[in-house]
């Protein structure tokens, strides 16, 4: 019974959202606001249950070793709320922001260099003459594509220089990449429509087998 009610609510709300295809209307607005409200409430429950309760309160109450260290992030978390106080006190929240930005920057620099730039650079240094002609062609396109695309982003080149000619080849590679990305995006959006259609006609109207 509960599942039937859930399916009817979900199906009805799907139609409410689909009504936007005809034009903005109060039914769509209702579903949109309901979604925003429910999402906010859902997030609040998750923050309480999985973050505050499980990662802060439970270890402190259980007296786990080193749990006292949790007071530090808890302190930074609490002073973040000072943004709501008058301007005289709201500056305190900047400590938390500085802490977050500092950690974020450190993590990103390490991750990007160690996990992205160096491995990708290594993957581009490829031999152009191997035993397999298929590999040779693949490697040729990867090397030429990388080099010419990089020249496209060298903006202080002269307009009629050799580098400009290379950059035009780079533009072609960029356009092909955009085309591939667009094709995949179309596929992704259609997949979402297929998902909703099979929900409406499978789970709700029961015309086809639910997936």
């Amino acid at each position: 019974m509960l599942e039937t009610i859930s399916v009817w609510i979900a199906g009805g709300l799907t139609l409410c959202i689909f009504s936007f295809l005809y034009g903005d209307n109060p039914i769509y607005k209702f579903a949109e606001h309901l979604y925003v409200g429910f999402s906010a409430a859902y997030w609040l429950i998750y923050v309480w249950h999985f973050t505050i309760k499980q990662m802060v309160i439970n270890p402190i109450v259980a007296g786990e070793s080193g749990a006292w260290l949790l007071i530090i992030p808890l302190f930074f978390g609490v002073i973040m709320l000072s943004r709501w106080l008058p301007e005289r006190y709201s500056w305190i929240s900047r400590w938390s922001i500085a802490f977050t930005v500092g950690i974020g920057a450190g993590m990103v620099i390490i991750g990007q260099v160690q996990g992205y730039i160096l491995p990708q650079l290594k993957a581009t240094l490829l031999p152009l003459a191997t035993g397999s002609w298929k590999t040779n062609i693949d490697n040729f396109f990867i090397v030429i594509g990388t080099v010419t695309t990089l020249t496209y982003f060298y903006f202080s080149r002269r307009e009629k220089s050799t580098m400009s000619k290379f950059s035009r080849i780079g533009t072609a590679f960029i356009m092909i990449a955009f085309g591939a990305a667009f094709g995949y995006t179309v596929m992704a959006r259609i997949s979402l429509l297929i998902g909703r259609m099979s929900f409406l006609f499978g789970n709700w109207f029961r015309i086809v087998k639910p997936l």
Partner: protein
Amino acid sequence: MENKKDFLDWITSIDRKFIFAIIAIVVLIPILLGIQEEVQISPSVNSAYRTIENLDSNDVVLISIDYDPASMPELQPMLKAMLRHAFRKDVKVIMMCFWPLGLPIGTQGLEQVAAEYSKAYGKDYVNIGYRPGDRAVMVEMGREIRHFFRTDVSDVPLDSFPLMKDIHNYNDISLVVGLEAGIYGDYWVQYVGSRYNQRIILGVTGVMATQTYPYLQSGQIEGLIGGLKGAAEYETLIGTPGFGLTGMAAQSWAHVAIVVFIIIGNIGYFLTRRREKRFRVEGRR
């Protein structure tokens, strides 16, 4: 001449509601008729399949649910297909989640497939739930999973499960499978793959597939499953048709319709340009 003008006017001002209706019809017909379509297996999906196929029966796979209901039609079929493959080979599964809204749908998929193969919770699979902190959690799990996941999704201590007794960090996990609708796939590769040499497979939404291919080319991931087509390929490989394969016919029909619309749009564009050029020339005379 007048007829040609009318056609041009029509072709350049087709009401978008007409396009929506056509797309809805071409998606709906294959679903209603239950048409299934064969798919060609791509090397990237085959590589993902081979990686799981080559695991031993007691190996452990960590599956990260990093998507929400908005990406469910693309990623849920991948999850189910990979779980079926893993459970069929008696591979143990640990599920976790970095997207809070992904936890219920991940749990639903896990419980459904585990029931199909009569797998026992705690012995064959464990759901350790959601944690905030993404990169920090990923890095710390390389030392001890319990530093962030003391309990499972239902607040039961991890040490009470036979499966988790000897599992402490990535050294005890054979493979990480990231099902991604956002940036977390990059994080798995950059922070776990590079730092801990962890083997990784990514299943991503169609939108993200092109930006994920470089990781496959560089060998940073062992397989890539992209969008609904990737899910359909995986279902074909394991021989269990699901939503991926059923959706592919609708997908193909919709693509054909979109290509036709693109061609019509281009014809309209070029004819209009030619007409404007002709008017300019006649105006000069």
